[in-house]
């Protein structure tokens, strides 16, 4: 997204946003095609293809940055679409408090999640810290259709898109996300109709003419996919991102998905069984980009283009045909670029990539261990201890990542770390993780009886040594305390968790799956109540995997006594809030 000052023009945006070599070298084609997909005929060369219609990004809008701004009263409204941050985000209490500063909150989900109920049923309300009548946030709950009740795509982490067809109408007022976004846009456009205010052009000129069908005027998901997949000026479909142009002759909603509607066929809906194709299975669904199942697969052949191993051959150079070929996967490389190709000095974009350089998204076509640009904490990986660690960093004089994002504020206190006074008050390592039976914050699994009964209660996993040391009983209850909150969990004493000898000391680990909250069929405290915000500076993800804590036998105190327990720990550890 363009920034207001740095990107006064499309040209400048392209210049600053991609290396000029490799696949990113064609960014102007991807951008112009995107603008054509969004603003159609209104996007012309004269108006920089409506580049100025794009919203400007004016800061860090990642999740935690937004929640912190919200906490300070700087965010008016929030859409949570299938998102349950009061269970799923670190420092759950902070998330809850931030929501109470909103004017309005719109949620789309299958049931009233913890986030949807934050104003009348939260740990803070239970303990008496917050009262419903003091929360001014207006909450709108929009029931959502499940994937079985709508057409659309699943994309998995391996980049594979698999189309699913609607099996039945959603019940009651439940609607698809597509329905909701489309009709919200339609209504806004109706309200603005006839406006001559130039700033409304961005909305009025949008290509919003998606066909609708069925009893609820469901927009045609297939039509949206066609827009994403890309077309030529004559309406025919593009087959890959190389066909995109920056002269306005092509329109494509997402360059990495270019070709998903090649030949006028929803490629992601192909379901040819494995018995009718080889194991590469290129006709099962579609993978971005260009149905490439293994990215950078030219690397499966040596610099001369011969398979490194005949047994593992995958993509190789066919000298006779003068083409890359293979077991069926799309060669992720210009199809006829010879292995010994060397670019000239003036070559740019893909032409600047050597014939033996498979990593086409990098400007030099090489895989990087040394990353001179792109990473805030590059150029080489190094070990840092986490924000809260009971140990010193033995590998590197710098204890913690100096570029990490920490927020010293009363709602987000940190524990003293190794060597600091008070560190011993939180002597154990806390780690959080997931179980197979539950899905993230539980909105889709703690509401399902067959999944809920398989993992019905929050538990913590500890070693027999820690159990003995702290008098914790298998099957009993434990209270886990951090400077953020105290939660209770059933105790699982197991040999799977081992106490380790580290730097001459015994280190105990407390493992806690994070899926529970106060709503649904199975309820419990949430592990994320314990964690602080401590973010990495590249993608702003918090340190969910490690913090420090204390653990003690028995259930946690109720009501105000809960906060008093946490307060007592803070005092002993010298944590200032």
């Amino acid at each position, binding site marked *: 997204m363009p920034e207001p000052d740095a990107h006064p023009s499309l040209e400048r945006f392209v210049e600053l946003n991609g290396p000029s070599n490799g696949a990113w070298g064609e960014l102007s084609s991807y951008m112009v095609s995107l603008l054509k997909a969004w603003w159609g005929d209104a996007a012309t060369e004269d108006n920089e293809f409506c580049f100025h219609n794009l919203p400007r990004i004016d800061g860090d809008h990642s999740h935690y940055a937004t929640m912190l701004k919200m906490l300070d009263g700087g965010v008016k409204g929030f859409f949570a679409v299938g998102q349950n941050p009061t269970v799923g985000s670190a420092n759950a209490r902070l998330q809850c408090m931030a929501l109470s500063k909103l004017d309005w909150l719109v949620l789309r989900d299958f049931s009233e999640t913890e986030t949807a109920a934050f104003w009348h049923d939260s740990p803070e309300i239970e303990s008496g810290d917050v009262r419903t009548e003091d929360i001014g946030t207006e909450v709108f709950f929009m029931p959502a259709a499940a994937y079985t009740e709508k057409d659309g795509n699943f994309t998995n982490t391996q980049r594979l898109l698999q189309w699913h067809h609607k099996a039945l109408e959603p019940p009651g007022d439940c609607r698809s996300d597509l329905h909701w976004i489309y009709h919200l846009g339609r209504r806004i456009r109706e309200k603005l109709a006839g406006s001559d205010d130039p700033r409304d052009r961005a909305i009025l000129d949008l290509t919003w003419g998606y066909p609708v069908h069925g009893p609820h005027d469901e927009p045609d998901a297939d039509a949206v996919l066609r827009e994403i997949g890309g077309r030529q000026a004559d309406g025919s479909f593009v087959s890959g991102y190389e066909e995109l142009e920056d002269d306005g002759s092509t329109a494509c909603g997402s360059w990495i998905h270019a070709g998903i509607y090649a030949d006028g066929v929803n490629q992601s809906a192909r379901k040819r069984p494995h018995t009718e194709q080889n194991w590469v299975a290129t006709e099962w669904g579609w993978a971005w980009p260009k149905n490439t199942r293994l990215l950078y697969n030219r690397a499966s052949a040596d610099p001369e283009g011969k398979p490194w191993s005949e047994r593992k051959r995958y993509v190789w150079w066919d000298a006779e045909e003068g083409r890359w070929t293979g077991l069926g996967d799309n060669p992720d490389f210009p199809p006829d670029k010879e292995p010994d190709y060397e670019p000239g000095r003036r070559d740019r974009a893909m032409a600047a990539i050597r014939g033996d350089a498979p990593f086409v998204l990098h400007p030099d076509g090489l895989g990087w261990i040394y990353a001179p640009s792109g990473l805030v904490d590059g150029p080489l990986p190094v070990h840092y201890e986490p924000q809260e660690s009971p140990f010193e960093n033995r590998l590197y004089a710098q204890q913690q990542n100096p570029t990490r994002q920490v927020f010293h504020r009363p709602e987000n206190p940190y524990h003293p770390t190794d060597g600091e006074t008070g560190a011993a008050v939180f002597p154990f390592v806390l780690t959080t993780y997931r179980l197979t039976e539950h899905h993230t914050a539980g909105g889709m699994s703690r509401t399902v009886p*067959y999944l*809920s009964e398989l*993992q019905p*209660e929050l538990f913590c996993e500890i070693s027999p040594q820690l159990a003995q040391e702290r008098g914790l009983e298998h099957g009993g209850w434990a209270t886990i305390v951090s400077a953020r909150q105290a939660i209770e969990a*059933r105790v699982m004493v197991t040999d*799977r968790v081992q106490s380790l000898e580290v730097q001459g000391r015994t280190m105990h680990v407390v493992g806690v799956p994070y899926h529970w909250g106060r709503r649904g069929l199975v309820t419990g405290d949430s592990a994320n109540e314990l964690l602080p915000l401590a973010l990495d500076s590249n993608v702003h993800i918090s340190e969910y995997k490690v913090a420090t804590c204390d653990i003690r036998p028995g259930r946690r105190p109720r009501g105000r006594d809960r906060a008093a327990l946490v307060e007592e720990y803070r005092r002993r550890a010298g944590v200032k809030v």
Partner: protein
Amino acid sequence: MSAETLAWPGSYGGDAKPRVGFFTDTSICIGCKACEVACKEWNRIPESPQGFTGKSYDNTLDLGANTWRHVAFIEQRVPADADGGASLVEAAERGGLVEREGLATSKEGDGVRWLMSSDVCKHCTEAACLEVCPTGALFRTEFGTVVVQEDVCNGCGYCVSACPFGVLDRREGDGRVWKCTLCYDRLKDDREPACAQACPTNSIQFGEVDELRERAEKRLAKLRGDGQSEARLYLADEEDGIGGAGAFFLLLDEPEVYGLPPDPVDSRRHLGAIWAATGAAAAALGAGLVAAVFGGR
């Protein structure tokens, strides 16, 4: 042709289908419980919440009227060296490191292995449940499987005590017995059972029993060759106490470790003896009656 049962294929004549069943290869079960859920979904089985059991990740505990697939989780302490056979690759690597580098993997040098195993009705060749059922609710299908007809079962419960595996169970508030049907409805539709289809690792393999046994023998040989000396097939032997099962298993340890009986026997095999005893009792009773009748004179 795999072991013939009393009613199959004989009583079906030309309508008999090949005998089908499961080979459950527990060595590749990842404990996802997809089989449990798929079975409940397909067969619309009531939920059966038991709360937190503390038995590792197993909160189901047993087969029952409302649980037709059950995934057991067994945590075992094993030596963390190559001989311990924890995970083959891992143990081999660790073993090498321990020897070469003098590396200790944990304080006591112990490793842990987590056995997972999906249990189900065995669809025995000699199925005691079926033989003791007085109403004919339990029957042998044309596929050689054992099924309860819910509209015939009167809830007498004879089969519950007859099953050597404790599979059969009366549903509370309903009184009738329920168990795995090997998805009889799906078989009639030429579809594989729900649990087998859901299993992402193919730990549950569905097919014709003869073919499955061959596959299982090959897999066993492979695992043994890789050093899993305790690996064994369970209920794949027609000479065992139930004449082999339609649903048999590859286990990585003794059956008891998984909570399975080591030598299950079809209780009907004792029936000869029982009948003899009953006959004697009846004769004695008869004599008593005669004495009573005539003694009154």
